[in-house]
């Protein structure tokens, strides 16, 4: 108990990435020395800075409970949800906070995500049916069929996987981990018939074949979506599809 009190009496230094495009075209690191509490997450510390020291600090956050996916940042070089990462893990500091890597920075810790949203949309993440009109009866799904894709449906679009992926940085057109996992979420849904439509995007050079399987996307994912697994499974499926077409061209695609 005494140990805790002495630690808590101390302060901790944050080195926060600042980028103010109206003042300078180059970013800088700003230091803040703050008191802290042992139950704080990184986001609490940022809120403390914003409320008490520097109101100009900009960052995104919303739910504080790992659901909304807004508060992803680089903490000591690793992409994490700041609301789900305890401060005491990084003692005695300093703790470096930077915006998510591999995204253009708008201001301070706020990144530009429109490219990510376009990529999500490109894989047609909705149930596609062959028939034009809605049919009368419901499309039935058993719990086992749900289990087939449920993991891939847990994505909260926090973009940590894009930050962890070196291919995203090296190949800007790469569709990316979250979007491909989301495509698999629909491909593996028994009610969906859009596999062929999605294949155009997924099987392109900028789709699954851009992935070199570094695997970090699955490591940093806060929801255990396992995008790396989703991509490798699609590679196997696409390759077997190719072989089937080659050996049995008369068979059904």
């Amino acid at each position, binding site marked *: 108990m005494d140990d805790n009190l002495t630690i808590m009496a101390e302060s901790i230094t944050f080195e926060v990435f600042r*980028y103010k*495009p*109206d003042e300078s*075209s*180059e*970013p800088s690191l700003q230091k803040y020395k703050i008191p802290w509490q042992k139950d704080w997450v990184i986001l609490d510390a940022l809120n403390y800075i914003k409320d008490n020291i520097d109101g100009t600090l900009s960052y995104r956050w919303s739910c504080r409970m790992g659901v909304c996916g807004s508060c992803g940042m680089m903490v000591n*070089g690793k992409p994490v949800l700041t609301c789900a990462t305890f401060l005491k893990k990084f003692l005695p500091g300093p703790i470096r906070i930077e915006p998510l*890597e591999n995204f*253009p*920075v*708008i201001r301070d810790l706020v990144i*530009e995500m429109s490219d990510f949203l376009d990529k999500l949309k490109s894989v047609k993440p909705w149930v596609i049916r062959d028939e034009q009109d809605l049919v009368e009866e419901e499309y039935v799904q058993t719990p*086992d069929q749900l*289990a087939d894709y449920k993991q891939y449906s847990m994505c909260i679009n926090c973009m940590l996987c894009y930050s962890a992926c*070196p291919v995203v*940085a*090296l190949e800007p057109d790469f569709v990316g981990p979250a979007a491909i996992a989301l495509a698999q979420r629909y491909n593996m849904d028994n009610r969906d018939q859009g596999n062929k439509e999605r294949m155009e995007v997924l099987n392109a050079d900028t789709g699954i074949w851009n992935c*070199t*399987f*570094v*695997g*970090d996307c*699955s*490591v940093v994912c806060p929801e255990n979506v*396992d995008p*790396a*697994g989703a991509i*490798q*499974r699609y*590679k*196997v499926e696409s390759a077997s599809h190719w072989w089937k077409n080659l050996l049995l061209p008369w068979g059904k695609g």
Partner: protein
Amino acid sequence: MEKFVVALGKRLINRVMTDAGKSIRRTYKKKMPILWWAQRSSYLHFIIRELTSLAVVYFVIILLFLLRAISQSEPAYIEFMAMLRSPAIMLLNIIALFGLIFHSITWFNLAPKAMVIKVGKHRVPGVLIALANFAGWLVISILIGWFLL
């Protein structure tokens, strides 16, 4: 005259709007350093895994040259084997062997990500799939060793 003023006003507004748009879009993009793969241990692990695939290629080439020597003549085979025993080639082989082992282990460890096998309703745990791969590797290695020795 009135039209002209309206047109001028529109043009001015457009100008201000696009300038404002540009200032919003003045984003900062960090450049990827050439040594990006040395910055995280997971990236380094990945690069070593990819580079050690060259060790696999190397042993395939050695094997092909060995087959060629065997098909040519007995002296050619003896000469090739003597070449393999030279210290430089031995050293290269030892390095390549470590590379090959690293590549094989990391490769089989990744197998569960791509292989999803279901028995009945349950997905086979990844550890079992990796173990099955390692067991297969071991059995084939023993068979080849038994055949050769």
